[in-house]
């Protein structure tokens, strides 16, 4: 995993040094090229392939996260611009699957960056999270969506 990543970075720098253009587009192109080369090589050697599944998953998660962010931003914007309120706020208790401090921090960051939700507190044994939600039409549905859409995919990436 780490070895593959470092090899990929090394190939990127070799590409940038050979072409001689110091720019972000060149970096991204070199990274993609290095990824492709490593993928081809690794198929023939039959070594650990975890890295090659993880990188596309990270990009898929970023795209999904931005889609969610846009959708929730639209709801909040509608409520801000129109004069009456149609929100149903409440604080719910959410049981996390995340165990270590790093996983909890990343999960709290993701939840806080989605509009309409704010993390208020953690419980003492670090098992529950208290989330303030602005549009709480159905509590079970919200918890189900949060755990399946955000948390499980995040844990797949960072574990």
């Amino acid at each position: 995993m780490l070895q593959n990543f470092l090899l990929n970075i090394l190939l990127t720098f070799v590409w940038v040094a050979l072409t001689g253009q110091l720019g972000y587009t060149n970096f991204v192109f070199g990274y993609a090229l290095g990824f492709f080369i490593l993928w081809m090589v690794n198929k023939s050697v039959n070594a650990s392939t975890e890295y090659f599944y993880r990188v596309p998953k990270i990009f898929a998660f970023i795209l999904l996260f931005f889609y969610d962010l846009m959708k929730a931003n639209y709801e909040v914007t509608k409520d801000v611009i129109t004069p009456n309120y149609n929100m149903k706020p409440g604080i719910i208790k959410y049981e996390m699957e995340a165990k270590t401090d790093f996983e909890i921090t990343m999960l709290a960051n993701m939840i806080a960056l989605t509009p309409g939700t704010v993390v208020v507190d953690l419980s003492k044994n670090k098992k529950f999270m208290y989330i303030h939600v602005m549009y709480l039409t159905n509590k079970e549905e919200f918890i189900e969506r949060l755990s399946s859409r955000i948390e499980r995919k995040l844990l797949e990436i960072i574990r």
Partner: protein
Amino acid sequence: MNDLLIKILSTLGAVFVLIASFGVFKMPDFYSRLSVTIKAATLGIGCILIAATIHFAEFSVTTKAIAIIFFLFITSPVAGFLISKVAYITGTKLWKDSIIDELENDPDSNCTNPALPKDKIKKE
């Protein structure tokens, strides 16, 4: 072409910032104000910084813009979490139409404050 892109991105970012500030002005209680604030402003500043990178088109400017976006995306949720926790501890009330509050008098949480009488923290 680049000029048109810069104009569109900067206008979009300014509109996001305007929505965030109008939300802060209009929303009725503290927690919804906070949840409107954090991301709309972060998104707007991201758009404006991308416009700046397109306008200057230099390596150093792009690095600075990426650093600013990274700082904002890392620090603003932490700041929001801290201030909301402190607000709950000091007894900020939820909105009057709130439907549920599972944090109230929960023995697991860190927010139960022995200095306050219990019925002062409740929602209006």
